[in-house]
């Protein structure tokens, strides 16, 4: 081949245009939102809570909580980006907590979650929970002998799920059941007395509005109907 001598310059030129790691993101600089909370204030406007683990050595508290008043989650994300210590990352989102007040009173609140379905890189396996009370209390709750809030919520969910005492609902599941005429959407319901507990199951109608709660025993029967009963003992 006559053109063989061109191979090396072309290879070098291509190598130089490789993107490499210029846009990498170190863990310390990222703000991984692990828990997001949606609540309404007295005027019926949206408040977004988020809990972000702090990987910084000097930070005394292990998580950073932010409270944002915003008309929609997308607008809230922009506001959060200004205030969080790093680049705002929704991709590790583990739990979405909705206040019972919001689920009961806000029309079409499910649209707030639309943004997770729209961006192709967001996870849809985040667990959705209903919190009976004001979210402010939940995000403040940080006893010294307990792990950070995201871990507490996740382990709570896992333990009730493995013993069939509560339901486990991902974002995908929630959308499926809300749009399915033949099945009642159910969300695990947590409350905070002296401790965080997941003792009930919230039932929604097909607009997504809260209608009733099931007790622990009733939840077991629900799981039996769903054919999702796990008999561990």
């Amino acid at each position: 081949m006559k053109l063989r001598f061109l191979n090396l310059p072309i290879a070098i030129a291509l190598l130089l245009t490789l993107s490499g790691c210029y846009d990498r993101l170190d863990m310390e600089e990222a703000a991984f939102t692990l828990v997001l909370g949606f609540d309404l204030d007295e005027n019926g406007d949206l408040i977004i809570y988020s809990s972000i683990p702090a990987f910084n050595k000097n930070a005394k508290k292990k998580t950073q909580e932010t409270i944002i008043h915003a008309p929609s989650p997308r607008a809230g994300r922009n506001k959060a980006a200004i205030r969080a210590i790093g680049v705002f990352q929704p991709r590790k989102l583990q739990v979405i907590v909705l206040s019972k007040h919001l689920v009961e009173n806000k029309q079409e609140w499910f649209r707030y979650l639309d943004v997770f379905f729209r961006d192709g890189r967001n996870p849809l396996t985040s667990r959705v929970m209903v919190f009976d009370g004001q979210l402010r209390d939940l995000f403040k709750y940080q006893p010294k002998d307990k792990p950070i809030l995201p871990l507490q919520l996740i382990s709570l969910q896992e333990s009730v799920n493995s013993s069939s005492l509560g339901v486990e609902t991902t974002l995908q599941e929630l959308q499926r059941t809300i749009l399915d005429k033949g099945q009642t959407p159910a969300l695990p319901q947590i409350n905070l007395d002296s401790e965080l507990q997941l003792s009930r199951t919230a039932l929604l109608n097909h607009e997504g509005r809260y209608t009733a709660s099931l007790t622990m025993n009733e939840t077991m029967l629900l799981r039996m109907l769903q054919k999702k009963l796990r008999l561990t003992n």
Partner: protein
Amino acid sequence: MKPYALNDITLMQYIMLINGMSVSFGFIEIPGMMATKVGTDGWITILISGLITMAASFITIQLMKKSPHGTLFDLLKQKFGTWAGRAAAILFALYFLLYAYDGLIYTVRLIKGRMLMETPAFLIMLMLLLPTYTIVRNGLRIVGRYAEFAVFISLWIPLVYMYTVKHLHVLYLLPILKGGWQPVLSAVPGTLFYYLGFVSSIILYPFIKHQKKAPIALLIANSLSILSYLSITLICTMFLSPDEATIIHQPAIYVLKSIELSFIEQVEGLFIAFYAFIFSLSWIPPLYFTVFCLSWVMGRADHRIPLRLILFMIGTSSIFYIPTYDELEKISIWLGESGIAIEYAAPSCLIALLWIYGRVKTERNQL
């Protein structure tokens, strides 16, 4: 003596070429289309249109049996003169070019929409065109080998979908035929689009090593396409509730979002990246067929010259203009309609034409 003997392909390569061309992006699109047009009975439509395709591809083989040592264009040239062959070659070149363009744009749009959102589309196009050139310029045997490689390296796909089994609800499939046969049958013509590609037999036939087994190879290739469409459609219908299925974009990818593995997140991103091999079969073989037709028109000239020209044109045009998803859908509809004419109708018409021609000739000889 076979004129194309130097470049012959094995039966396996033939199977993978036909199967790869038809499945490619249909795998992503077909569950959504079935859900909106048919509802939960989409799998019946897929079976019916698959059987029609099977029949149509056997007709194509019957046509090609008349010309074991040359392509369809050689046959037409021999029977009806040079210009008939050239006209057919140009027609098929245009058809395969449209086929390849549709596949390329679909892949660029999907990769840009789901993975490389910040990367300009023409860079993604460039990234896809470079390997395309290196494969296509080497001729049919390399294209065949590539098709074989691409299908075999993608055999893990069914395994990934096994992870979704625990989220499936068999009840969503029942009752079967709840809307009657009408919606099921009315969606058949639109579904044929996803089976296009088998008409490449008119070029591939003289290259096949064991031509007697070509019908069996087609049977296997079409069964593989039907099987992959059936499985993905059944999975998506059982995963999504019936009303939800009509509003979800690309359910085949949405379903994968339910998978949680402890060592990797975003399984669907990995899936798209590796699935690009299968996507590439929707433009690499058709591009080869396009340049084959063009070089045939020019008297078997070097096929790399039209190839460079076409790739250059696609590449530069992508800097200025790349169809949006909606425009892409329009292109797909054109392709589907011309595909039904060229792949399903044309071969049987040609057989009839050749038969009448043969009768007229023998009668003339008897007189």
